[in-house]
């Protein structure tokens, strides 16, 4: 009996590892295929049977992509994502801290409203935002996209930061107050530094959200001047012909910042996911 149990355990273990490997394969295969295609010369796409790894690795697709308008789109996306993230964090800091610590009439209503915004369908915004941007002549500028992205990021930032601030023990702030720290001082000298991992997680979340936003960005940009990366990707699909190599190359490039951020902040990311969704 004992031997059988041991064997069962080993079989169980092997099955587990196999299952995990399968899941991992599912998670990573699209990335693998994307990168593999980007290094494959186009002729090899038509090979029968299909090759998974390129036979003749080529950088041609990347050269084409980097010589084209994609670079401008990349720069545009960087500008928008960085500024929207910065603005959102700065705006949310004092609000989140107050929501975390204070008791005042209407607080719950505000928090509920912010939570509710997460459930808003973004399509609700396409018509009105378009008309507003038209009136102020902002269509086809990065301003339009930036302002639209604030709709996405600001409520989320307030929500996440409130959660992180709540996690800081009140005693730390009280001690600072006793030592003569002003209200603002408590925020900047005690709360902010301690919550820095949380602030970082919120910032990264905001960056990633704006980096990948497609719907609003596509409405507001009609030319390369204001095009962001997700919209640029869609342009690789021509009427007659799809430049798959360029598309995969551009996709790889577009994913790089996010993956990099992710690798650097992996643990905060995982915690942030759960905290942001379950808190409250």
């Amino acid at each position, binding site marked *: 009996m004992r031997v059988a149990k041991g064997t069962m355990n080993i079989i169980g273990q092997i099955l*587990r*590892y196999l299952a*995990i490997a399968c*899941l*991992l394969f*599912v*998670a990573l*295969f*699209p*990335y693998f*295929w*994307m990168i593999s295609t980007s290094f494959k010369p186009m002729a090899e796409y*038509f090979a029968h049977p*299909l090759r998974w790894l390129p036979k003749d690795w080529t950088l041609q697709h990347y050269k084409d992509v980097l010589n084209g308008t994609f670079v401008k789109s990349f720069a545009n996306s960087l500008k928008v994502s960085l500024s929207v993230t910065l603005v959102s964090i700065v*705006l949310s800091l*004092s*609000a989140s801290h*107050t929501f975390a610590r*204070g008791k*005042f009439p209407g607080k719950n209503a*505000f928090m509920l409203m*912010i939570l*509710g*915004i997460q*459930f*808003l*369908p973004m*399509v*609700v*915004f*396409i*018509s*009105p*935002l378009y008309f507003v941007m038209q009136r102020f002549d902002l269509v086809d500028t990065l301003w339009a996209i930036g*302002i639209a992205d*604030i*709709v996405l990021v*600001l*409520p989320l930032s307030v929500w996440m930061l409130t959660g992180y601030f709540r996690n800081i023990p009140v005693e730390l702030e009280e001690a600072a107050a006793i030592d003569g720290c002003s*209200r603002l001082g408590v925020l900047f000298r005690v709360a902010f530094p301690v919550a820095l991992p949380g602030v970082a997680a919120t910032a990264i979340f905001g960056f*990633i959200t704006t980096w*990948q936003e*497609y*719907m609003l960005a596509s*409405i507001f940009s009609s030319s390369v001047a204001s095009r962001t*990366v*997700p919209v640029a*990707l*869609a342009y*690789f*699909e021509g009427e007659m012909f799809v430049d*798959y190599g360029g598309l995969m190359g551009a996709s790889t490039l*577009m994913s790089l910042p*996010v993956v990099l951020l*992710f*690798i650097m902040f*992996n643990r905060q990311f*995982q915690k942030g996911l759960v905290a942001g*969704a*379950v808190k409250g």
Partner: protein
Amino acid sequence: MQLLPQVRRHKHQYLAIAPAMLTILLVVGYPLLYNMVISFFGRGEDWSSFVFVGAINYLKLFKSSSFWRVVAQTVAWAIGSVSLQFALGLIGALLMNRPFRGRGIVGGLMLLPWTSSFAVAALVWKWLFHPQLGAINDILLRLGLISQEINWFANPSTAMAAVIIANVWKYFPFMMTMLLAGLQGIPQQLYEAAAIDGATAWDAFRHVTMPQLSPVIAVSLLLAATWAINAFSIVYLMTGGGPAHTTEILPVYIYRLAFNAFDFGPAAAASMLLFVAVLVISVFYLRMLNREGD
């Protein structure tokens, strides 16, 4: 201006939340209101002039068969996406629950689909589902599961399957992370007590794991469902709503009304309906949660 005593007492706090809340009110509230107003207007002589038409936009939607078809498609899409995400996420969470060497890295790698951009996910999966050059057909053929290449985007059912698969791929890590966190919050004593009572692994799963997990499951399902119902980019970029509008979910339908047909009035009306639907679902759900949670 005489301030209410309450406002005066909490002046500092209201000032502190003012920048963020005012911005939110402006950037979120104003367009929302504007959208509600537009929904009662119809097209005038040219595409940028409006005529007040009252509730006609809404009535036209309710009478339109294509609207209801889109609603049905949205429901099918949501149920398919969420249930598969949940299944995959639960399996993943259960697998990852016991420590093993390299678990941290594996966990991180499993999150990669979640970090992908909608555009990247949509277009890479579109390439994967390419009838002749795509890897999916290649794998299915090699495994002998099909004898001929499937033209994924030519049939409504396979096209819907394709977009659902892409969506599930992107979102299952979220479900997995939530469920894993929930699993790790279950006190070990409960399992020990169950073992003493002679419970099998399956019994323990049914009577300890699932009940303990239900609040996390509820929140995750709600979020997943809302994200699915509100989804736009993946479907739009993969199929454009095709073939023949059969993968058109509500947000794509609304977008098409607004920017292809320039029917801003009906588009606004449809989006208000979507908004109300999501609101009702969330409130109903949250109320159910509150009742269970206590």
